[in-house]
């Protein structure tokens, strides 16, 4: 691997911003008190937590008492969905989508085992561009629906869902609405004051805070049943001593994200567009996965036909370029990403998808280098692919792939 890292995998995780680290450090050494303690040594930590909560609240237009710190986005998602089901035990229907992150998808698919009750789960389809059909969404809602859980922006394609409209529809029907916003928070403006959203999940490490810290927003007045039961922390809504340093860091990260929002949507977006257009124009048989405009400013997901994603990534790794793939081989499963399959991406392309996700730390030079290297990598792999530039039917023997891939 090359010494220099060109990090374009920010939807997977981000670097902790230097300012964030600096804010966190005292809480690992001098300021180690427990905010629940009666003495002022611990109490001063409590004051810092209050400030952090205000910083998070400011980024998303919430009030501080509507926020609960959790251990990660996954915990926030589980808490929200299980809370809604417990608040309305007679309602046994969940509406979600086929392209959710596993934190929501696998939870919903296994919910019967957790609650001991049978639930109906509607997983809304998306079209070829990864976009939901609002009419289908409205049809799916019933008297039985306890909660709608729809991601704000997709982690693989960056496609943004019409969360505002969807939340309004749910509200008009008296149904709780949760959104997994871990990819959206910090990248696009969010103002919960003007949105009838009941629950919203945030993950710290997706916006330059540390791993192991998340937030669940619970609208004031929304019924809530805790997931982690223990002490009185978070007003009894989430037991467990606060992850102080990470919370302080998250507060600082949210403050920074607010300041950098403009840059994210101008300079970062311009770099993303340059990368995307450059790759699509110079590499034949490449295609964009996901809607061209309803999309996060930092994400592009491109398929290179007739080559396999893991092989591409390992060649990129030689130059220190970090990205992700939706191919089967990178996941350890045998099928390509459920998101690309839900979108109906043809199998010639699904196995060869690469996701680049940028951040404010990327530079124009890095984009140029990636544009320079990608062409030869794809060409090299295609040269050894039995399907490239051949009239090969693409299948051999009895393989028919009747399954969803």
């Amino acid at each position, binding site marked *: 691997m090359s010494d220099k890292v060109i990090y374009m995998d920010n939807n997977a995780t981000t670097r902790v911003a230097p300012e964030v680290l600096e804010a966190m450090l005292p809480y690992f050494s001098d300021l180690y008190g427990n905010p629940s303690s009666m003495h002022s040594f611990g109490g001063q930590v409590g004051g810092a937590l209050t400030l952090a909560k205000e910083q998070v609240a400011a980024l998303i237009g919430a009030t501080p008492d509507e926020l609960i710190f959790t251990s990660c986005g996954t915990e926030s998602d589980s808490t929200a969905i299980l809370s809604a089901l417990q608040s309305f035990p007679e309602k046994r229907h969940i509406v979600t989508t086929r392209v959710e992150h596993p934190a929501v998808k696998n939870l919903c698919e296994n919910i019967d085992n957790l609650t001991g009750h049978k639930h109906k789960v509607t997983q809304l389809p998306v079209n070829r561009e990864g976009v939901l059909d609002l009419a289908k969404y409205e049809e799916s809602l019933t008297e039985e629906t306890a909660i709608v859980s729809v991601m704000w922006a997709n982690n693989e394609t960056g496609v943004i869902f019409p969360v505002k409209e969807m939340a309004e529809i749910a509200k008009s029907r008296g149904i709780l609405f949760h959104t997994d916003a871990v990819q959206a928070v910090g990248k696009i403006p969010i103002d919960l004051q003007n949105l009838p959203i009941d629950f919203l999940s945030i993950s710290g490490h997706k916006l330059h805070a540390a791993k192991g810290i998340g937030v669940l927003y619970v609208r004031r007045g929304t019924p809530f049943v805790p997931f982690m039961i223990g002490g009185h922390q978070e007003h009894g809504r989430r037991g467990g001593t606060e992850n102080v340093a990470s919370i302080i860091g998250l507060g600082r990260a949210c403050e920074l994200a607010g300041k950098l929002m403009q840059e994210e949507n101008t300079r970062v977006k311009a770099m993303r567009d340059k990368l995307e257009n450059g790759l699509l124009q110079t590499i034949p048989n490449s295609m964009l996965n996901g809607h061209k405009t309803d999309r996060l400013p930092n994400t592009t997901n491109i398929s290179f036909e007739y080559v396999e994603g893991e092989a591409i990534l390992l060649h990129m790794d030689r130059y220190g370029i970090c990205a992700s793939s939706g191919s089967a081989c990178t996941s350890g499963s045998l099928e390509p990403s459920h998101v690309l399959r839900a979108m109906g991406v043809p199998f010639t392309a699904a196995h060869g998808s690469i996701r680049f996700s940028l951040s404010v730390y990327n530079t124009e030079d890095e984009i140029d280098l990636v544009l320079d290297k990608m062409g030869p990598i794809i060409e090299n792999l295609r040269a050894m692919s039995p399907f490239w530039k051949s009239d090969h039917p693409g299948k051999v023997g009895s393989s028919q792939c*009747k399954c969803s891939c």
Partner: protein
Amino acid sequence: MWDYTDKVKDHFLNPRNVGEVSNASGTGEVGSLACGDALTLTFKLGADGRIEEAKFKTFGCASAIASSSALTEMVKGLTLEEAEKITNEDIAEYLGGLPKEKMHCSVMGREALEAAIANYKGVPIPMAQGELVCECFGVTDLEIKRAILESNLKTVEEVTNFTKAGGGCGNCHDRIQELILEVRKDIRGEAQAEDKPKRLTNIQKIKMIEDVLEREIRPALRKDGGDIELIDVDGDFVMVSLRGACVSCVASQTTLKDYVEKKLREQVLDTLIVEEEKA
């Protein structure tokens, strides 16, 4: 990230013998674009009956490319009889090992070789003659049985890692389990692997509990002038009510846990918890 050996990385980054042999003696093709990996293997037989040249074209991940490259190196100079003896384990070993989830990549190499030899001999590919078990990845019972036998596979997951069978829709998992039992029975006359405890329905559970109560527990309690009644079953919780002499007996709690619960756990389900219903 996969933990690849240096040899895998070397054969992936610098693959040997890429391409197609001109005037090939035999051509073997396996896999499909849909399934994420595919391999075309061509070879040329020399005048001395030994493989003079072998080349590959592979669509797939790093280990698929490395396995193909390794295979072409391994078969050079071998007679067809010798080449036929190469197993997927040999290919993996040549590469210093493969992650277990990637073993199917080496299997693909071996199958391409078999297909190429069959093509040369003008006979059908032996492994393709079997019953198609996994429709998603086109794997036959013969291939699955051979993998179980040669690599000593014990679970459906292992079979999937080695052959890809069962890695798609999952409809064939039961059939794969049958094949595992079949092969293992054949090799060692091994007694059928112990059946997993079946999940009981509530009705089955209640019937079995009633049955044990009636047959064993009640007669024993009645000897001391007591009795027991089943009130409810909720998941693992068995609610009972003690009657007769048991009500005033100081040892009733011991009876409940050490005798009733023990018997029910032995004969019905070992997770049951017996509790007395308090009026």
